[in-house]
């Protein structure tokens, strides 16, 4: 697990997850991404 490897690993994973999520949300908001189905 990434967080096991270093003291800062958990923070990095958290921040990367937040950055990706906000980027995806912006892309959806401004209709850059098509509607996502599951």
């Amino acid at each position: 697990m990434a967080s096991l490897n270093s003291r800062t690993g958990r923070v990095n994973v958290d921040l990367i997850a937040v950055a990706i999520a906000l980027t995806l949300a912006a892309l959806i908001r401004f209709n850059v991404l098509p509607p996502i189905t599951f």
Partner: protein
Amino acid sequence: MSAHTIPSPVAVAPPSLAARLLRPLPGMALLFGIGLLGKLLEHTFAHLRAAHPGFPFPHLEYVLWAILLGLAIGNLFGVAEAFRPGVATYELWLKLGIVLVGARFLMQDILHIGGLSLVLVAVELVLSLSLMTLLGYVFKLPPKLTSLLAIGSSICGVTAIIAAQGAIEPEEEDTSTAIAAILTLGAIALFTFPAIGHALHMSQQGYGMWAGLAVDNTAESLVTGSLYGEEAGRWTVLAKTARSGFLGFVVLAYAVYWSSRGLAPDVPNKAHFLWRKFPKFILGFVALSVLATAGFFSKGQLVSLTNLSKWAFLPAFAGVGLRTNLRDLTGQGWRPLIVGILGEVFIALITLGLVYWSYSYGVAR
């Protein structure tokens, strides 16, 4: 006397950026492959059940298929070295999914149910910490192992134990034993909680809150909630996120305690310590919730965000199965496991009672 020659150090060039970016790809492909196979099996059996109603085809959701496939691969064949960096990314997918789920909660929900969660979490915290400490004393576990089990069972499992490791400096063996015990108990919860929920005819919201309060590790907690239903999984995220918010405070309290006994480093700047230990993904969860509440997204866009969170959870579910080692069930010594089981059963019962009480008295919606 024979002459030993010491080989001169060989300069190893650090891997290039491209190599570092490519390294996780096989494991990520494995995670998504298992998740997609789980979805395929769910659809295939649903189709077969409709076509041949008399035949007992399995009725399992993709969440359970992904875990079972991951468990089978991880325990029968092991995870090859080439796949490990990618399999470790399951934590990233899990947190990405949790942040995206934030868009499904309006701030009113968070303030209402989140407030209730905080009260329930506070009660759960006090009970778990006290009970684990008492059980550790009764079963004569090493004191720092007891602290790790108490921290892991009261907040968010492995993340909490790792966060505490640097602060209270336990023996390395204590850390791995505590992690193994917490993961083992999480694996047991995956299969027992949904059955209990169905037996008690629990509502999606009530069950989701219970799974978020009682199951320790974030990944296992989310899977345990999602196995009961999509709605339950959403409420599990909320309860678990509220619980994770206490991480810094509990670890700080233990750090100060062990430091006061001269058995851990001093904590000179407590505010900095709290910020360093705070799980930052909670900020992303709240940010998306604020944006959704402010009407930043249309209805269709919120559906897309929800579906994106499901895509993010898909590899995370596969990762939970892959890294669950069934041999750990017996390989860690019986005393930490007995303490863990007794403590977890008690906490599960208490939190179940708390959830029932709060719903009976109309606190929750």
